[in-house]
């Protein structure tokens, strides 16, 4: 374990800085009283996810994350906030009255998940825990995998995107 930590010291420090920022921003997304601030906190979380992809040497996914999530999904959310005329100031009416219960459920799920994951990967020896970060994943390998092994799933996803596009237009159209 100390060998691994020394081997990836820089990545570890970067991981914890990004992870703590992401955790704080994620809590902000679900607790903030201002809906626009919640959307902007979501930007921080999504950028953090992209940074974690880069740390995991998945550069292509990092770029895709920035393009699709920060570029498109957040803009969609901001349009949704504006079109539903949510109050752009602090408002107490975004939370319902089951916050304590919801917090209890979330803490319980996290406790069980964290125990199981640490039990499976953390304490069963460094070999089961080790990441092999030797060479970055080549984008050609991803492309090969998509268009060879998962080509049927790819076609299904493209059909789903078309259906979602038509569905969104039909739903939101004013007639």
């Amino acid at each position, binding site marked *: 374990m100390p060998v691994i930590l020394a081997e990836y010291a820089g990545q570890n420090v970067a991981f914890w800085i990004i992870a703590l920022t992401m955790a704080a921003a994620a809590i902000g997304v*679900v607790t903030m009283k201002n809906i626009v601030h919640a959307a902007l906190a979501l930007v921080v979380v999504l950028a953090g996810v992209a940074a974690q992809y880069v740390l995991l040497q998945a550069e292509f996914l990092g770029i895709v994350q920035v393009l699709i999530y920060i570029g498109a999904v957040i803009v969609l959310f901001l349009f949704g906030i504006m079109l539903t005329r*949510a109050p752009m100031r602090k408002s107490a009416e975004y939370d319902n009255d089951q916050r304590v219960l*919801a917090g209890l459920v979330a803490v319980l799920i996290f406790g069980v998940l964290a125990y199981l994951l640490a039990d499976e990967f953390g304490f069963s020896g460094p070999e089961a825990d080790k990441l*092999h970060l030797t060479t970055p994943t080549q984008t050609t390998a991803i492309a090969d995998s998509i268009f060879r092994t998962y080509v049927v799933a790819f076609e299904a*996803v493209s059909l789903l995107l078309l259906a979602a596009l038509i569905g969104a237009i039909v739903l939101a159209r004013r007639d």
Partner: protein
Amino acid sequence: MPVTQFVLLSAFLFCTGVYGVLARRNGVLVLMSIELMLNAVNINLVAFSARLNDAAGQVFALFVIAIAAAEVGVGLAIVLLIYRNRVGVNLDEIDLMKG
């Protein structure tokens, strides 16, 4: 680098999303919490892709990203429709199908 810290971060993000879905009553904020959960799953997929040295995990993460984008589009269209037909987007006031 240990894979445990990535799965723990992902578990934390997922639980934050669960809390958001349960405790928020604005439709747009619930959709944001669902995005948190989907991103948590993606971190897991990419971490195990690096762990197993296999690009398949990243391919699945790409599929999840595409489906999440479609989901947000349709979800926001539904929220917009609810806003237009009823007065607000507070989910606990939508009880048309309550017996």
